[in-house]
């Protein structure tokens, strides 16, 4: 029995090391990276990179961007490393970009791949690597590069998902598919705009959104100031028939809602 298990273990190790080598992960060397163009954008200078697209990033508190055009082993890649104030904000901006992106959520805290792009949220970083899908190994190299740049620039840490939300997620549920995080009107309305009119007079809040949970999205919203919580509660309860959400539970300056 022991001998059988040992053989199985050796076989598995051999298999994974083969895959690892095949994917080009085992022989990564930063010297294989050639930077052809490097740009840095800090704060609102992001307008210089993406104009109006910046507003969403700025709402999450975007700090700075390292935008690189590189080749790795001769294959071109576009690397964008966005440094955000916190792991929650990095997750938030990542969660805005996961549509039609196939999640893995295993190699990084969160990661997904689409036909031409690898994305990850790791610590306080959101990273995007665009590649030419016709280039051999490009998809695998994108992962290697993401590892390299998150190590180089990241701070580590994981987003603190409120218990009220985490408790509603199934074990092993891919967060990339179901969980979103918003910090203001642009990000929240991109995800679910149902309660936006109730937030008109509210200044500071953040919201965790679980998509596709039964009858409607579930939103856990937390207000920075108790006055804002009061304003929102009043608006919601006085909405009458037009009430866009039902209250599942309420806590200190926070509320768990199911969107109708």
């Amino acid at each position: 029995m022991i001998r059988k298990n040992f053989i199985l273990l050796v076989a598995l190790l051999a298999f994974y090391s083969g895959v690892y080598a095949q994917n080009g992960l085992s022989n990564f060397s930063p010297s294989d990276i050639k930077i052809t163009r490097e740009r840095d954008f800090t704060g609102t200078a992001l307008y210089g990179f993406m104009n109006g697209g910046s507003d969403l990033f700025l709402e999450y508190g975007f700090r700075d961007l390292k935008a690189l055009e590189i080749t790795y082993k001769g294959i071109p890649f576009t690397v964008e490393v966005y440094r955000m104030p916190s792991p929650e904000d990095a997750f938030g901006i990542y969660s805005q970009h996961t549509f039609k992106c196939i999640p893995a959520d295993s190699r990084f805290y969160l990661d997904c791949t689409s036909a031409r792009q690898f994305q990850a949220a790791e610590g306080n970083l959101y990273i995007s690597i665009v590649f030419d899908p016709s280039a051999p190994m490009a998809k695998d190299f994108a992962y290697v590069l993401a590892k390299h740049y998150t190590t180089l620039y990241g701070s580590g840490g994981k987003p603190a998902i409120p218990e009220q939300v985490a408790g509603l997620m199934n074990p092993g549920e891919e967060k990339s598919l179901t969980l979103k995080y918003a910090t203001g009107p642009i990000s929240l309305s991109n995800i679910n705009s149902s309660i936006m009119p109730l937030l008109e007079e509210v200044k500071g809040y953040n919201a965790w959104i679980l998509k596709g949970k039964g009858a409607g999205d579930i939103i856990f919203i937390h207000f920075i100031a108790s006055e804002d919580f009061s304003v929102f509660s009043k608006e919601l309860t006085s909405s009458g028939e037009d009430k866009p959400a039902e209250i599942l539970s309420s806590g200190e300056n926070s509320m768990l809602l199911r969107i109708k």
Partner: protein
Amino acid sequence: MKRRDFFKYLSLGGAGLALNPVVKAAESSPLFAVDDKPATNIKDAIAVPRVKNSMPGLFPGKVVKVVDEKSVIDGVPSPEAAYNMLKESMLRLTGEKNLKKAWRKFVSPKDVIGLKVNPVAGKLLTTSHAVTGAVIKQLEEAGIPRKNIVIWDRREMQLQETGYTQDKYPGITITGTECQDEKGGYYNMEGKLYAEDRVDKNQYFFADVVGEYDAYTIPFMVNGGKESYFTKIVTEKVTKIINLPILKNAGRSTTLCMKNLAYGSVTNTGRLHTKLWHETSAYVCAFPPLRDKVVLNIVDGLIGCYDGGPSAVPQFICNYNMLLVGSDPVAVDRIGLDIVTKKRIAEGIQKDEIPSSGRFLELAQDLKLGISDRTKIELIEHNI
């Protein structure tokens, strides 16, 4: 929930916080009569008499849509397909049988013609060289010398990055407002932004919203304050403008003809995105440098996107395989918005049409820049 609020927030996250501001100016339309909006100088624009070429130009309310499913080959727009699609578009728009005559309705060899491209999303989603090349080729065939053609956008750097270089376009001027020297610097020896000399401080869009920028940002905004100055490219350099936007979304709206022109022509735009997106898209186009010089709009929809715009997010980039052409930027934008919206619904990005996404079109129609009412638009469709 009040109905007013409902529509207000339907537009959020796309074009920004949409229904906020409008002019205090006492315009006749209800669109301009809202009191709680920042004041603008749109009245100054309206006060300037219109000219023969003023928007919506020669063919108000007429849009030609030409589709060629083989216009993108292995992810690359085909120059031959683009040429043919443009030719079909021009003939159908003008009703001419001769391509040269079709072009000469809009431009003459005496004109200096600015091609307003859109490189902001980088190499993945720029106005394609296939379409820009087709326009240049047909202009030359119509007798326009290359020295009279200018490819321009707001940022010279982004033109270079997306391949709009002198090497690729010999004999044609390539220029932008914001620019760098060969060492990548934005300032001259006197510490003045190079871009400052490229803006016309006599012509500006005023909005009662202050732009405040740090040292990192100012090279991309040129100035702060309440004025957005027009680039000299449109006030001095060119006599006619051919607008070449891309078929792409901007949040839940689109960034097509009007947005491409408005935000590409003035400085200090950072303050205008969130609160004044719709107003800026319409109002800036009402000022004479744009209103009286833009003669043709050619939306490059060979490759476009349906979400993630105005940036380029790969999973949302798609081949629309089409051109939309018209002299009326409002009508073209209306058709373009419908196409992008339909695609967004089909892809599950949104469930329904969002009327407020096209509010800038209503504002523009009110300013007599074109026709936004789709029931009054003549759409000519042709498949190759």
